[in-house]
């Protein structure tokens, strides 16, 4: 029994080593994460200036805008998530480790969420507070982003995996990803703007999309990586 536990420990250590390495590399290149956060804040400012001084109108449009910017920020990182490991041959050597690409995809989902979505999730309450969204809506916004951002990460990685062999038409990744995000944005904004009863229902739908994407996503990502490797 202890031998099985030891083997399991070594196996998970092996998978986690991929996540920890990716996080370490990105932490040494923090400018990329800062850039995404600054981009996020600047686009909010652009919308605030575009809407003008009408506070009521701002409060109506701001939540859909925040969610749209979140999707745009996810689109930016599409070409950064898997391409390095593909180009420097790391995906090739992962084949010989005995770890399935599905598990590697789960590790990548976890890392990408930590690196690119968590900072925005942390930033969100401050932004919402500064632009005077009421407390209940801030709470709802954070819940929808906490559930919705991992879904966006999965979609981003699917798009990123599909784009591995494509080095020219980089906008294609966003074109693949954005339609997938439509249900997420509908139910997330619906949950925030509707009353409490509908909030629970819409959160349940979001949760079902979350679990479905986590169940299907790793297989799709792994399939795309395998196809890219054989090319």
């Amino acid at each position, binding site marked *: 029994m202890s031998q099985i536990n030891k083997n399991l420990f070594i196996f998970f250590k092996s998978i986690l080593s991929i996540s920890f390495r990716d996080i370490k590399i990105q932490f040494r290149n923090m400018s990329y994460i800062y850039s995404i956060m600054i981009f996020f804040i600047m686009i909010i400012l652009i919308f605030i200036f575009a809407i003008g001084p009408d506070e009521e109108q701002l409060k109506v449009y701001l939540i859909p805008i925040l969610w749209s910017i979140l999707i745009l920020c996810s689109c930016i990182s599409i070409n950064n998530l898997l391409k390095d490991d593909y180009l420097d*041959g790391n995906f090739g050597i992962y084949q010989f480790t005995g770890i399935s690409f599905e598990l590697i995809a789960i590790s990548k989902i976890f890392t990408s969420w930590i690196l690119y979505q968590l900072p925005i999730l942390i930033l969100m309450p401050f932004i919402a507070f500064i632009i005077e969204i009421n407390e209940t809506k801030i709470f709802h916004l954070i819940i929808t982003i906490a559930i919705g951002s991992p879904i966006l990460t999965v979609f981003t990685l699917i798009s990123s995996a599909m784009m591995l062999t494509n080095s020219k038409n980089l906008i294609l990744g966003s074109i693949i990803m954005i339609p997938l995000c439509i249900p997420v944005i509908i139910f997330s904004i619906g949950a925030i703007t509707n009353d409490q009863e509908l909030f629970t229902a819409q959160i349940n739908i979001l949760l079902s999309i979350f679990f479905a994407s986590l169940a299907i996503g790793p297989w799709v990502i792994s399939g795309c990586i395998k196809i890219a490797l054989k090319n």
Partner: protein
Amino acid sequence: MILASNISCKRGNNLIFENLNFKIEDGVATIISGKNGSGKTSLLRILANLLKPKKGDIIWKGKSIYKNIDEYHKELTYIADINCSKENLSVYENMKFWKNLYKSSISNDLFLKLLSNIDLDNYINERVKNLSSGQKRKLELTRLIIEERHTWILDEPFLGLDQHSVSIIGQTISDHLKQKGTVILSSHIPVNITNKTYIDLDLHESN
């Protein structure tokens, strides 16, 4: 022992080679030679199952590798012609990552000995991006020892190495062969390996 049976390779519209048959024996280094574009890298990638041949089969332990792929992969170390070490990590961090990834039993003392043998011991905490191309290649080749595998597939392993390093890697390959390991490599640089055989792809060139 690995047997290649009637392998053909097509890249785009070009048939690179066809009906290639050969045998790779344990304890003998198989050196794949040929001019540029003759398909050396493609053949090595086919042997590592990173590329599907247009037709033909690779037989290992009496079975097609495609029917026994997981076991076959666990026997392989593949060193590509590009380095897979991460530029923003140090030499030690890259080696530690490979150790964990391949569940290797190699100790830290052996790490240091290994680095000392290839003159990288002074660079252990240096980031890979600050190393020369030869040093990066030497770091890549430490995977041969770290991964502890039976079959080594090496694509231009001596690229950018000085003569001293070439002879050290040649000696490492010879030691592996003495332990009945399998080595398949392509190289334009002559190397002193005791027991070797050649596959000349120019003789199998398809027109």
